[in-house]
């Protein structure tokens, strides 16, 4: 054996052996049965062994194991670039904190650009809950509720503002202006009847008036906002009198409050809705409406701990009890001492979950949040409060969720397709090229082995398109062998000796192999730059596969073919 051949043999053997060693944990990880994995729940030693093996195995993408991929955007409007960067960092930190507390193993949380956060949660059972936990701002605020007289005056200020706005838009808009009162008149009869009481909240319930009467229309025109705000004392969730917006008017009122005319509310005050639908004893349904201080008396920043527990006053609902830090305790003590007998609203992300009346000063720094929570809602809320509020609102811009069932099916189908494809390729290669076909098969097997080992060693993710990339590589890897074999056949046709034909064949084929694979590699690199998630997985396996297939063809195939050609007695090559 020549020196060059010895080197080639050594490199091949080394590559294959190292790859096989690197892949041992992967094979172990894949061979754990479902029963073993289930047993690991009770057996910490086994669980640790499995975790250790899994950590070194090829990582499966979210599309194969199920999970959630989220791209979230942080609202940085009005921030300087330093503040924006800081906000993004804090969002990342808090989201990480929340995910850790939620107990998801191996989450990936990373920032992208200046305003985005990418969150990947593998093997997720309840995507909706996870999204709520991750994306929610969770800003807890305690705000004093303003007395009813102030509510009345704010309502009439809003009426004036909306009348002025309607008048201003009606004049230039002409006919279009009349559309709004017409729309208002079309509201259902029940709302129209309720609205009558809004003018005189203490009047008894009037008989139902016919919807759309001229009187109603005039009333709506005169009270464009307060007409939709009703009062009742019979709410199950609220002691005493409460303002509310009926279910059918809720969307309209919400819109009104977002319009510019809603700035008529004094700056030190704020109108906030209850967070859930409330019902009266007589079955009326609506959202409670509160007038609260714009300045929060205390915020969730001062929270020390929070936990979920059953609601003492209810058999079904849960509550969240919290304790405040030292500064929070003294602030809360002062706030409650000075306002005994008033309502203190507990507001979460601008919606009020409850507004209990302060009975006595609370000086121990402890309290509870009730709001008809289920046990899960309460424990999630407690988690959010512990992890802290996001410094800015976050919106989910992209979501890719794969359920565990689809993940399982994808693996099975992908692997089946890959194995059957590879089998047919091998059979065909051996049938077509005989002995050199076997050589090509060996090169192909080494190629896949090396490719998988690189994935495992560098922690790259195997996705379903990635699996397709491996299969495609199998097809392409044989390309190099085909080029070599076709060249050798050509040379043999020129009646060269086997040895000369093999030498000349390699000599001529090498440049073409490198050339041809380089273009596909270039395409792979462009894909790597363009793709995210599963597609990146495809680009990764294809690019690695191309490089390793060139290696196996030029080193391994060459070694075997030269070995066969070395024998001077050999006058024919099985090709």
């Amino acid at each position, binding site marked *: 054996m020549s020196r060059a051949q010895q080197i080639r043999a050594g490199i091949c053997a080394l590559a294959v052996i190292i790859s096989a060693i690197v892949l041992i944990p992967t094979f172990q990880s894949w061979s754990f049965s479902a029963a073993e994995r289930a047993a690991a729940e009770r057996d910490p030693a086994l669980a640790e062994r499995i975790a250790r093996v899994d950590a070194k195995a090829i990582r499966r993408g979210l*599309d194969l194991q199920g999970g959630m991929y989220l*791209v979230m955007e942080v609202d940085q409007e009005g921030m300087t670039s330093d503040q924006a960067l800081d906000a993004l960092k804090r969002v990342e930190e808090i989201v990480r904190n929340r995910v850790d507390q939620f107990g998801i193993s191996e989450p990936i949380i990373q920032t992208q650009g200046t305003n985005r956060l990418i969150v990947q949660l593998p093997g997720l059972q309840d*995507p*909706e809950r996870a999204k709520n936990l991750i994306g929610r701002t969770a800003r807890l605020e305690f705000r004093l509720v303003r007395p009813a007289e102030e509510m009345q005056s704010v309502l009439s200020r809003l009426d004036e503002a909306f009348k002025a706005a309607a008048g201003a838009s009606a004049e230039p808009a002409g006919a279009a202006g009349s559309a709004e009162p017409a729309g208002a008149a079309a509201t259902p009869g029940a709302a129209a009847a309720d609205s009558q009481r809004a003018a005189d909240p203490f009047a008894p319930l009037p008989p139902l008036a016919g919807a759309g009467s001229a009187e109603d229309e005039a009333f709506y025109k005169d009270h464009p906002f307060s007409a939709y705000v009703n009062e009742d004392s019979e709410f199950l969730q609220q002691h005493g009198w409460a303002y509310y917006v009926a279910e059918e008017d809720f969307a309209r009122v919400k819109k009104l409050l977002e319009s510019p005319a809603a700035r008529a509310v004094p700056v030190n005050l704020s109108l906030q809705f209850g967070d859930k639908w409330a019902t009266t004893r007589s079955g009326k349904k609506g959202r409670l409406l509160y007038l609260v201080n714009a300045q929060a008396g205390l915020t969730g920043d001062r929270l020390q701990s929070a936990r979920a527990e059953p609601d003492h006053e209810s058999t079904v609902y849960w509550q969240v009890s919290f304790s405040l830090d030292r500064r929070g305790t003294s602030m809360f003590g002062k706030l409650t001492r000075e306002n005994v007998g008033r309502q203190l609203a507990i507001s979460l992300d601008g919606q009020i979950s409850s507004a209990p009346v302060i009975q006595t000063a609370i000086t121990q720094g402890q309290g509870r949040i009730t709001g008809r929570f289920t046990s899960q809602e309460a424990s999630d809320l407690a988690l959010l409060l512990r992890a802290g509020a996001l410094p800015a609102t976050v*919106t*989910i*811009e*992209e*979501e*890719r*969720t794969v*359920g565990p*069932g*689809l993940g*399982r*099916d994808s*693996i*099975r*189908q*992908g692997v089946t*397709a*890959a194995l059957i*494809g*590879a089998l047919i*390729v091998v059979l*065909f*290669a051996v*049938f*077509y090229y005989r002995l050199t076909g076997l050589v090509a098969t060996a090169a192909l097997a080494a190629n896949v082995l090396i490719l998988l080992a690189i994935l495992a060693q560098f922690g790259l993710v195997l996705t379903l*398109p990635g699996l*397709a990339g491996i*299969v*495609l590589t199998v*097809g*392409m890897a*044989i*390309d190099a062998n*085909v*080029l070599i074999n*076709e060249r050798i*056949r*050509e040379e043999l046709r020129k009646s060269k000796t086997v040895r000369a034909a093999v030498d000349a064949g390699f000599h001529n084929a090498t440049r*073409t192999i490198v*050339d*041809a694979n*380089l*273009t*596909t*590699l*270039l*395409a*792979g690199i*462009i*894909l790597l*730059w*363009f*793709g995210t998630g599963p*597609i990146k997985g*495809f680009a990764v396996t*294809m690019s690695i596969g191309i490089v390793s297939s060139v290696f196996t063809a030029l080193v391994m195939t060459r070694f075997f073919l030269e070995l066969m050609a070395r024998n001077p007695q050999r006058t024919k090559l099985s090709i």
Partner: protein
Amino acid sequence: MELFRESNIDFVKMMRGAVIMSLLMIAAGLASLAIKGGPRWSVDFTGGTVLRVAITPTPPAADVRRVLAGAGYAGVQVQESEYQGAAGRVHEFIISLEGKDTGKDAAEAMQHALTAGLPGTTLELRSIDAVGAKVGGELRTAAANSVFASFVVMILYIAVRFVFRYGLAAVVALIHDVTITVGLFSLLDKEISLQIVAALLTLIGYSINDTIVVFDRIRENMRFRRREGYAEVVNASINQTLSRTVLTSGFTLITTVCLWLLGGPVIRDFAFCLTFGIVIGTYSSIFIASPILVWWAQRQVVDKRRPQPAM
């Protein structure tokens, strides 16, 4: 065993027929694209939500549509897909809500509506793809840029390795391949998704690969067979590499066809795109790219024979 032993097919002569066939295919695709107002972009690019659920026992699709319409999702498309999963047959409803910036809650709201509206059934979430309008726009730009970039890179690569004229011929073949593939997707009413763009990029690399093998041989032959005409050299080169071209395409096709038929619904269209693309890419390497070189060379010869205007 050998295919095409010392074949001597006159490909250059078949060029006219090939060009007509290609033009017909391109025209059919473009007509479909024109009638349908462009390719059918998936939510990856338009923004929107695609929800895949399996409901047992499986209700009729009409019920699914009715329940969703009742919940305010009247504009949704409901498609069905049935296949063999790891644990028996799977019957999926693919519910797509396109175009709107549906935000994060549409998938959940539709699931809740289905659970409430189809009592007695259980619902299994298979997947959610929700893309905001903004991200959709960014993905569109990225996809267009990457396809464009790959054309430029391929021209440059071949121009450096060969001469510019070869690069141009190769890229004409590429544009031919991509146009016909996108046209076929329009004719079959299939969506262009991120995966399909990835498949197209792969094809661009793969199709060039075939073309390079032929060009490489042309260059090699030009050194030894100077006395023959350019068309003869090109023809001989195609014939000499024909066995290799058909074989490698054949091997790759085996794997992509397996993926297409057995790989499951998630990558079915991706594998289909690769399969068709490899066929069309191989065809264009033989019948389009190399004949363009001949045509170009002949034109230059004709130009030179023209009487030059007196200066």
